[in-house]
């Protein structure tokens, strides 16, 4: 319901402020109006009392001369002039004269059946004291202001009334104040209406003024921040906002500027680091390129001429010499493999990953194809399970799997009924390559992934000692994991996990 208000901070603040001001003003207006109304009522009561006193004084005079017809006339006259209802009662509250003639002889309780009033009247008739205040009564649905004036006995009256009673009776003046109250109510309603209208207008004015003071700057601020963040997102960190507000917004702008500055600094140092790395990488690239070209050339010479010596001069050189020449050739070829593997390892860490969904099964088939001569010659059993398509760099993954398969072939070489299983472990979510070869002691399971780490003598199992390091580097480039489980003499299983979609 208040969603549209809460959508904007400024609007929320404005609404709360405006409502608060309006509430305070409404309370003030209420207090003022009710106070005013009370004053007016008081005034009416006072003027009624005044009127009653005047009337009573004139009646007392008539009473003193004991002229009953004159009294009746006087009362009629008051009635005809729209004056208040007047009842003159005896000490026993029985009405002797009244502006309404048909109430004569009735008890006061019949015309004003109000208990507190009757009690007050009773007390006044007993003591002869006039009650200090007029009473306002609702009689028959109409408002009356009623005053009681006791009539005391005095020597003038002794002739007719004797001297034993102190109070002869009372004059009750009851003024119908309905009209006055109506006027007051109308006036009050009018005041309230005008006040509400005024309040409304004032609230609107407050809202507009505050919105200029709060909302406008906030909106401008928001636009600027939007622009700043957009620029930063686009890689431009140079923009700064003008600080022109001495308030909290100014503080915020300052903070944003500081943040942008920190980002710019950070970005610059990152760029610098990136350039350095790019430069180092370029150097390494150039170095690797030279290595792959120039380090191999002398090896070709050594190997080639050794071979020529063996071919052309076999008759002239001794068998021992031929043996050494063959040792030279073997070492040359070893050196060549080492260079190749070192380059592959270096490349596995440097080249940019070309990730896409790769048919791992296809890769495995290719790798197996490369080793087919040995697989067929040795009659190795190959078990090949389903492997899901994975997001990875095809070339690197091919190298990794090929190395694992090559290892499996190598380390089953001295056993019977060699078997190699390649598949996907659903539980571990890992590609596995399992062999039933010589295995290794789990004590060394970390070591085998290190560069130049070997668990066997070179004459037992050939190899550069780099193969598994290459596998590890490739898998880690993919944020994956590689590990091995084995038991000496009982084969080994290598696992590779690569995060899906990563």
């Amino acid at each position: 319901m208040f969603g549209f208000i809460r959508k904007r901070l400024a609007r929320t603040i404005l609404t709360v402020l405006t409502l608060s001001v309006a509430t305070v003003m409404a309370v003030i207006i209420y207090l003022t109006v009710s106070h005013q109304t009370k004053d007016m009522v008081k005034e009416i009561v006072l003027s009624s009392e005044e009127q009653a006193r005047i009337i009573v004084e004139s009646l007392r005079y008539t009473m003193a001369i004991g002229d009953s017809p004159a009294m009746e006339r006087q009362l009629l006259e008051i009635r005809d002039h729209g004056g208040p209802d007047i009842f003159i009662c005896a000490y026993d509250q029985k009405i002797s004269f009244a502006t309404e003639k048909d109430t004569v002889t009735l008890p006061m309780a019949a015309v004003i059946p109000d208990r507190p009033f009757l009690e007050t009247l009773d007390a006044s008739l007993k003591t002869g004291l006039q009650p200090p205040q007029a009473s306002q009564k609702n009689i028959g649905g109409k408002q009356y202001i009623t005053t009681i004036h006791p009539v005391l006995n005095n020597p003038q009256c002794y002739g007719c009334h004797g001297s034993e009673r102190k109070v002869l009776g009372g004059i009750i003046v009851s003024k119908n104040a309905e009209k006055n109250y109506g006027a007051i109510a109308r006036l009050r309603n009018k005041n309230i209406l005008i006040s509400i209208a005024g309040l409304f207008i004032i609230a609107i004015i407050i809202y507009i003024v505050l919105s200029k003071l709060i909302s406008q700057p906030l909106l401008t601020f928001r636009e600027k921040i939007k622009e700043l963040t957009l620029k930063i997102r686009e890689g431009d960190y140079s923009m700064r906002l003008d600080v022109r507000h001495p308030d909290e917004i100014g503080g915020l702008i300052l903070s944003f500027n500081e943040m942008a500055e920190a980002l710019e600094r950070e970005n610059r140092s990152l760029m610098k680091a990136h350039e350095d790395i790019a430069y180092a990488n370029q150097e390494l690239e150039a170095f690797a390129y030279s290595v792959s070209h120039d380090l191999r050339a002398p090896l070709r010479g050594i190997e080639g001429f050794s071979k020529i010596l063996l071919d052309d001069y076999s008759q002239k050189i001794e068998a021992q010499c031929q043996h050494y020449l063959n040792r030279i050739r073997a070492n040359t070829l070893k050196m060549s493999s080492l260079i190749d593997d070192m380059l592959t390892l270096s490349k596995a860490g440097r080249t940019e990953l070309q990730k896409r969904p790769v048919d791992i099964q296809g890769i495995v088939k290719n790798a197996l194809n490369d080793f087919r001569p040995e697989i067929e010659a040795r009659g190795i059993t190959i078990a090949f399970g389903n492997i899901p398509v994975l997001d990875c760099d095809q070339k690197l993954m091919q190298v990794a799997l090929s190395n694992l398969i090559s290892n499996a072939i190598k380390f089953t070489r001295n056993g019977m009924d060699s078997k190699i299983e390649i598949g996907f472990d659903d539980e571990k979510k890992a590609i596995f390559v399992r062999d039933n070869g010589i295995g290794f002691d789990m004590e060394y399971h970390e070591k085998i992934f290190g560069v130049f780490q070997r668990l066997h003598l070179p004459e037992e199992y050939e190899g550069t000692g780099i193969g598994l390091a290459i596998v590890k580097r490739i898998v880690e480039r993919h944020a994956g994991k590689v590990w091995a489980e084995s038991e000496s003499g009982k084969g080994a299983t290598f696992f590779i996990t690569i995060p899906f979609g990563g």
Partner: protein
Amino acid sequence: MLNEQVTILLVEDNPDDVELTVRALKRNNIANPLEVLRDGQDALDYLFHRGKYANTTPVLPGLILLDLKLPKVDGIEILRKIKGDSVRKVIPVVVLTSSKEERDVVESYNLGVNSYIRKPVDFDQFVEIVKQIGYYWLLLNENPSLRR
């Protein structure tokens, strides 16, 4: 057996590699005339009959064995010139080099190389490769440049 009229051009700066290549050709009984050039500039001069080859009888080779790392002008540049020339582009060019760096392989094929072979360290393998090259490009393959 082989078409012995055509010249083989070997562009190779390393004297050891030159000697080993000559030896491999001989072992495979490939007796075609062999022109050996040691740097890239010489190779271009020879192929385009200019510089010190301006006054010789123009002969176009029937097969070029090209190393990539060469003094002055590298092999990729020579390949670009050959394959960019309307006459010489039909000459089969076999890149015979030390590395199989991705960018070299890709660049060579983009320029239209006919084969890309990495010289193996194992001499027996090298002899076998030279044999394959000779048989394929000089005997089996029909090439317009050989008929002229």
